[in-house]
């Protein structure tokens, strides 16, 4: 492990995760791999293995985890969390890792676009002409613009918008 090269942080990474909301249970992991065999994403790509994400976090591989793709591949199905015999809240640990990564400005482009969509239009997925055209076919009314003002207040109060700006400055 290339500890020496990594940036110095006040806390070991495992402690930092443990103190983050959702990351509290990380140290309970004993690497049984139930999560890995439960994971639908791990079945189709070797890029994501929840057991490995936790192992490397516990080894304090901060840089590797935060700048890598793995934590963004979790599909939040919670299979692993339901079956973990140590009650590690694995999906929540991954959210905690994502939150740390976002603070550092590490967020994949697609998530950035989601966030912009939320701030600007109140929707993660932007409305497309295709969808608007299709709705009447299914007997659905046209979509009204979402109440962005109220949402913006919330996003501003929670500091979400600032996080997003920071990300944009970084990139």
């Amino acid at each position, binding site marked *: 492990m290339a500890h020496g090269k990594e940036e110095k942080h006040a806390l070991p990474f495992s402690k930092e995760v443990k103190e983050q909301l959702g990351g509290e249970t990380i140290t309970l992991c004993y690497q049984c791999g139930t999560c*890995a065999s*439960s994971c639908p994403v791990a079945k189709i790509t070797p890029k994501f293995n929840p057991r490995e994400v936790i192992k490397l976090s516990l080894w304090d591989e901060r840089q590797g985890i935060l700048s890598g793709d793995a934590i963004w591949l979790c599909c939040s199905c919670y299979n692993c969390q339901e079956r973990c015999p140590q*009650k590690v809240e694995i999906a929540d640990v991954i959210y905690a890792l994502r939150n740390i990564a976002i603070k550092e400005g590490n967020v994949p482009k697609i998530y950035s676009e989601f966030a912009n969509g939320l701030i600007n239009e109140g929707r993660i997925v932007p409305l497309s002409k295709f969808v608007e055209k299709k709705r009447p076919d299914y007997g659905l009314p046209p979509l009204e613009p979402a109440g962005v003002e109220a949402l913006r207040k919330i996003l501003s109060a929670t500091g979400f918008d600032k996080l997003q700006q920071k990300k944009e400055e970084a990139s």
Partner: protein
Amino acid sequence: MEKVEVGVFLSDCGNQLSKTLDFEALLKHVKQVPGVALVARASEFWRGEGLKTLLEAIQGKKVNRVVVAEGLPKLSEVNIVEEVEKAGFNPYLVEVIDLKDHCAWPHRNTPKEATEKAKAMLLAAIERAKLFEPLEKLEFPALKSVLVIGGGIAGMQVAEDLADLGFKVHLVEKTPFLGGLAARAGRFFPTDDCAICIQSPASDVKTITHTSRKCVYRSGLSEIPNLNILTNAKVVKVEGVPGNYKVTVEKKPRYVNEQKCIRCDLCTTVCPVGVPDEYNAKLKKRKAIYINVPPVHPPVYVIDESVCKFHDCGKCVEICPTKAVELDQKSKQVTFNVGGIVVATGFQEYDPSVVKEYHYDEYPDVITNLELARMIDGFGPTNGMVIRPSNRKPAKRVVMVQCVGSRDRRWNPWCSSICCMISLKHAMLIKSAYPDTDVTICYIDIRTTGREHEYYYEKARDMGIKFVKGRPTEIGHDPEADLLIVDVEDAVSQRLLELEADLVVLAPAMVPPEGTKELAEMLSIELEEDGFFKEYNAKLRPTETKLRGVFLCGGATFPKDAPTTSLHAHSAAVKAAKFLSKGKIVKYQRTAVINEDYCGDCEFCPVTCPYNAINLVQKDEEHFVAQVSDLLCEGCGVCVGTCPVNAIELRHSRPNQMAAQMKALMSINGTSKPLILAMCCSECGHTAVDSSGMAMMQYPANVRVMKVPCTGILQVHQFLEAFKAGAQGVMVVGCKSDGCHYEVGSPTAKKRVDLAKMLLKEYGIAPERLEMFNMVFIEGDKFAEAARMMTERVEKLGLLRLTGAS
């Protein structure tokens, strides 16, 4: 009242102590204390010439209270107490203090101050001794008979040991046959031979030498003269106290006369009722009249009353050649008196169906280790064949899954400790009988801690058993191919695997058997959080409970393998024998005493007493008072500290003795530093002070040590009184909160210290002047550090002046 004449015996440890302490000054000081009739100095007083001087003084009635200042107090006190007792002197009139480890050695750099402290220590001991009262020696009956609950491997061994030692033993087993889980397991690691091997009983002297082992079925267990075996029976009531219990056992009817049955098996040939055989993993049917396997003990059939048609059928009655079947047998209660009780109730396999993703309920080919054990057993339902229960064809691919419901915080967080070895044993037994069978073990960690156990793991690898490091997420079923699929990640190769299997064997957790809680309540003993019985001390007294007279062995305290269970059973036998062998329990009345004039109608002390030694009894029509059992009371004093009206005292540590001691310790300073009183419990606290002295760790002589039985005895007002007596700081030194020798004393003391701090604040006294410390014997460094720290802290706070205090 007789005149108090104190004899003070000062040992200088071969002039070692006089290098630091001015003995001439000490002798002079002691001589002028009122009540002191004799002062002597010698090299040592606990043996040799010194002891002779001491004994002569008490035998010649020159003194009636004794203070000894010794160098090796813990060792010397034992000897002095024994010797004075032999000389007809009550040992509770003797006070032994340690001028070496508590004074000369830790203050060797400040001899003048050390001498002043020694004066205070001697004065305190004298003042305390003056108030001593002799304690009475009590005797209680101890019947030389024992009840053993549970007829498994542990119960049988402990019963045999005690019966051979001459005790009358009643062995009660709830099922119709002896053997317990052990008999069902068939074979045991690490020998791979029968599970039910036990030492041969003494009765079988003709064929058996002491080096041979024998099994329960051939042992003649039933022939041991002192052993009364009650199968199909349950303990329903336990009354009385340690040493003298009255036990009621309900014996369910067997419907077959034990004396008449010759086990010819004709009854089963005519019995028309067939039910799945639970004992044999439901892999075969048995009749309503049955035995588990051919070799059982007792070798007598039993009728399953839940399915038998009784007089509507009666075929077994007709055919029985000895007229042994008695359909009119009734349940009966038997009572007997015993001195002690041994709990040997073992453990049971957890029901793995709660782990839904393994589908134990749903797929017949998913079985447990115990069910596989029945298959492997030659006497079992398949006569040793390993088959798929769904189609009864041989299983060619076997996958074993470890830690099912075990090491699992959703169910049972503990490691059941024996399942790795059980699975390795099964895997090897299958592989050696059917070498073309593919056996895979899915594990989280393989735990083979025990003699020859690692060799098992090695041999298993050598035999070609495969190991996958991973806990499966799901056991699936492919109906077309008719096979099971085990979904697992092998962390070592980082591969996701789908293992195909004919048979999946789960290794479920081992848990306390049903009825454990009820039994604990009946016996007034405690359970651990895991639901197993709680031992007195896991390290030193693993087969005893807090209640003298009740013992534990085998799996009743936690899952165990056969070797450990045997050790446990023998240990429990020795402990029970030690407790009862004299036929009486002798102890000094070193107990709590209630002042009935003050006591009334509160329930604090019976609830707080860690030994259930206090009961409330009717005083008059409307009022209750507490009553202490001298047999059960251990003399810790937690009740004293709890009592809101000061109605309880310890006979061996009266409040006036403690007050006199405290006042004397604070009456002489002689140092430039503020006086600090360290109230230390007699267990870890006081011995930690010893160990700091032994290692010559230095702390200032203004710190004075007062021994109390347990910090739990201390009341809030006593902390305040210490300040009133002149202490500028108070330390309370007890055992670690989870290691209190009286269980609740030290945590209770902590609460009282916190409360006292609040009061101090109200009085305008800095609460930091009072502090609780928790340490163990070997943490002498911690005590010395605490003493230095408190001194510095109190010095910074400045002089405390109390109005009205001298």
